[in-house]
């Protein structure tokens, strides 16, 4: 009798990938286990998953959001400890950190991929207007100015309607260069730095300058609008995450390149956000725990890493295998790992555990910075007050 495993996921986008590549590969090597990938829409995923887990009707395998969302599931006993899996050794501690208890004693999800922030640009537009790929912030704004002058392209494709773009592709994209990646992030967690410190406020000041280069009515521009603006060739630069690569490849009919977040002065160490984004864990109440563990172990294998990374360029494997990727844009992104220091998004670990929620606050703050409705300093103060209201190390 075959065992059927059901995977809960928010990755609607990957449905065909799972059905056509990953599952057949797994089933071929593991007779007797069938796998069903049943994604739900990303916005509802957390709510749906929690309800199902509470009622005991959730699938065997659960796709894990990074940090607290999954930690809460583990704490509530919904996720099983998977530290013991053989292939967990294929992941570095950093890779696993997003799905570990605070003390690191238990790991409850097998890491799948991370995403890297940066900027994707329209190579043809750069050639046409005669702009060099910027390395420093000055060059970056000079390039934007040039596009603005030229007028045939919107310099930057970003909108504030959906809010998270501004925070994720704006603040957390350029920020690590200011707060020096992990150094700043950890200091903030420890309470040694405050959000009112300049390295946390300065990115807002920079963001504020972006508004001049955004399209008309960017206030109502949604995330898909931004994507479309760029892929239809109407914008020159797109503040991006590497996850865009697949879609952009399919949609844009011009050549694209990528550059990493510009540093303040030439020669500065560069920092990139190489964000642990997705993992997969075991429903503690699964009736097919053994088969599920087999599957999870397979997720830690090189075979999986290769299939996944190549099928979804832009989702970079977190395993220590050297996965060969074919996509040039993806290669460009992943090459930064060698040049710069990696960090993850500043708000994700620990700092968004309370109310107000620092991540969500950062969304609003980034929008406000861009729109210029509040000064960077005020924003820093607001965020700091909010964080301090519940986070002891910051009190």
């Amino acid at each position, binding site marked *: 009798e075959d065992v059927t495993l059901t995977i809960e996921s928010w990755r609607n986008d990957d449905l065909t990938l799972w059905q056509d590549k990953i599952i057949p590969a797994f089933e071929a090597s593991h007779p007797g286990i069938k796998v069903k990938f049943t994604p739900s829409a990303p916005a509802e995923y*957390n709510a749906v998953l*929690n309800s199902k887990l509470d009622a005991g009707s959730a699938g065997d395998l659960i796709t894990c959001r990074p940090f607290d969302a999954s930690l809460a599931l583990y704490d509530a006993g919904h996720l099983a400890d998977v530290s013991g899996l053989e292939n967990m050794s294929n992941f570095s501690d950093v890779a696993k950190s997003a799905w570990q208890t605070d003390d690191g004693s238990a790991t409850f999800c097998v890491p799948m991929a991370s995403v890297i922030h940066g900027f994707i640009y329209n190579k043809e537009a750069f050639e046409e207007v005669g702009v060099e790929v910027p390395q420093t912030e000055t060059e970056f704004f000079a390039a934007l100015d040039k596009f603005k002058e030229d007028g045939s392209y919107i310099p930057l494709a970003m909108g*504030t*309607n959906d809010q998270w773009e501004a925070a994720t592709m704006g603040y957390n994209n350029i920020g690590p260069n200011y707060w020096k990646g992990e150094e700043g992030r950890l200091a903030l967690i420890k309470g040694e730095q405050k959000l009112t410190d300049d390295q946390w406020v300065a990115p807002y000041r920079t963001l504020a300058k972006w508004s001049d280069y955004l399209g008309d*009515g960017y206030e109502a*521009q949604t995330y898909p609008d931004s994507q479309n603006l760029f892929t239809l060739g109407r914008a020159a630069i797109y503040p991006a995450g590497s996850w865009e690569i697949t879609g952009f490849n399919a949609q844009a009919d011009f050549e694209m390149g990528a550059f990493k977040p510009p540093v303040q002065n030439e020669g500065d160490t560069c920092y990139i956000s190489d964000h642990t984004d997705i993992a997969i864990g075991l429903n503690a109440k699964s009736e097919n725990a053994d088969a599920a563990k087999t599957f999870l172990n397979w997720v830690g294998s090189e075979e999986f890493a290769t299939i996944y990374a190549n099928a979804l360029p832009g989702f970079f494997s977190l395993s220590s295998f050297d996965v060969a990727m074919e996509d040039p844009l993806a290669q460009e992104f992943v090459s930064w790992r060698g040049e710069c220091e990696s960090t993850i998004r500043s708000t994700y670990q620990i700092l968004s*555990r309370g109310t107000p929620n620092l991540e969500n606050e950062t969304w609003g703050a980034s929008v406000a910075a861009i*729109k210029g409705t509040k000064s960077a300093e005020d924003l820093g103060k607001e965020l700091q007050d909010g964080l301090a209201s519940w986070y002891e190390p910051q009190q």
Partner: protein
Amino acid sequence: MKSPRIKSHVIVFLAPAVLVYTAIMIFPLFNTLRLALYTEADQVRMFVGLENFRTLFGDPRWSESFWNALANNFWFFVIHMLVQNPIGIALAAILSHPRLRFAAFYRSAIFVPTILSFVIVGFAWKLILSPIWGIAPDLLSAVGLKSLFAPWLGKEEYALTTLALISVWQFVGIPMMLIYAALLSIPEEVLEAGEVDGITGMAAFWKIKLPLILPSIGIISILTFVGNFNAFDLIYTAQGALAGPDFSTDILGTFMYRTFFGFQLQLGDPHMGSAIATAMFGIILVGVCIYLFGIQTRLKRYQF
């Protein structure tokens, strides 16, 4: 209107509805609302009485959001009352004109938006109102009003009103249908008597039809009230759970949803969520009670 003893047929008539409704609606809902009296710390559920409400109304971080959502909700409701219901009544009045040609077509056409899912409505209006893709700006400039254009959904000062109007657009079919049904039940001869009396057109509407459909208008008002204070989907699909820009479109529904189920990194807090839901419930209950005991009993009904 028989004698006041509960007879067996009354029970038979009520039983199926009451049973299904109690088991599947009331029981789960109150089970959930009960959570408002608890909180959870370290996986342990503790009874805290009204503590959550104290937080909700006492802690400025919560209360500000709450009052903001409530105020927005009121505005949302006001727009529906001022725009949706009058338009719905007007359309129904026009449509109910006997033998109006193409009435069935108009009626169906006007009802189409109500049938659409929120995803479509959100997409269509975002596309139309988008400053980027140019439908609204082009249409406005075609009539020489380009200067009036603004990225309405993105501006704090317009976003809520814009969404309310979209919601009006979507739901105008409902008051229309109800009023239409009510207008149709007015006996033809009464209207004819009015016609012979010289009470035609607007006068017939104000003096004869309107008084006779007042109970239906009452129903519509209370349904609008309940619907608006429970609204959630449109805002959620158009502006996301954070009801941007800067919470300017946050209404009780989105606030509750965000709190109850969590959002992004924010974990769901069923306890605070239930507290908000209870507060919403209280607000709506007061409204419905005012209607049921204050208005409905006073509205004169006429049997035709």
